[in-house]
């Protein structure tokens, strides 16, 4: 097993996440695509931890997970607040600041 396999899998995951952010309109699905991209980055961290036999990058994954949890909590709260005023979470409708 070389590390290239893990890198390739991670890039495919990251690409699918980026495409999801750009293509979908449901804001919750966009958030899920962001989580997919976090996951791809975490996979690279863990793969390199095993490759270089260093525990440090596993701790980075731990911190990334913490930040992701905080991001999801605030993001979903934002989603609820937006839904209350606009009765939609379609990102194409969130254009009140558009000139």
């Amino acid at each position, binding site marked *: *097993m*070389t*590390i*290239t*396999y*893990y*890198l*390739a*899998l991670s*890039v*495919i*995951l*990251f*690409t*699918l996440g*980026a*495409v*999801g952010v*750009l*293509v*979908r*309109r*449901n804001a*919750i*699905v966009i958030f*899920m*695509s962001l*989580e*997919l991209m976090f*996951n791809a980055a*975490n*996979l690279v961290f*863990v793969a390199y*931890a*095993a*490759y270089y*036999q260093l*525990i*440090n990058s*596993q*701790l980075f*994954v*731990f911190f990334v*997970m913490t*930040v*992701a*949890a*905080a991001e*999801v*909590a*605030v993001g*979903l*709260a*934002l*989603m*609820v*607040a937006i839904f209350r005023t606009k009765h939609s*979470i*379609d990102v*194409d409708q969130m254009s009140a600041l558009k000139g």
Partner: protein
Amino acid sequence: MALGSVILFAVLALVVVGSALGMLLSRNAVYAALFLVLNFATVALLYLILGAPFIALTQITVYAGAIMILFLFVIMLLGAEKLPDTARSGRQRWVAALVALVFLAEVGLYVAYRGSNLAGMPALTADFGSPVAVGLALFEKYQLPFEITSVILLSALVGAILLTRQEKQRS
């Protein structure tokens, strides 16, 4: 290179990519969330193979457990699974295709130029990535970042409560 480990990796990678595609393509947001749970659980299995049992179980409990439950709560609270979700039109789709091509071309170039230099994965010692090792590194070397994450979580907590609080009627 053991053939068994390659076959195991191929099966897991297929499930990971397939569930990510399922999340992207499913119209119903609840199905998307369930595909994402499958994805996270399978990536946790990859972490186990890579000698990170603590991270794998954190992934299961935090991601596949807590975060996805939060997603499902919000989807059902807002009734978001019934919202029409057509793909965005025109230009944005081309941008998405371009981004995908650029990412894949980057990794292709990387493998073409550097891939041959990368050796195989070294054999892992039994206690590599064990909860003891992770905990010792976390509390000795990375104590300040660990404390900062607690501040981040606290501010996220306060922010989430503040954002979802019902506005009082001003008389």
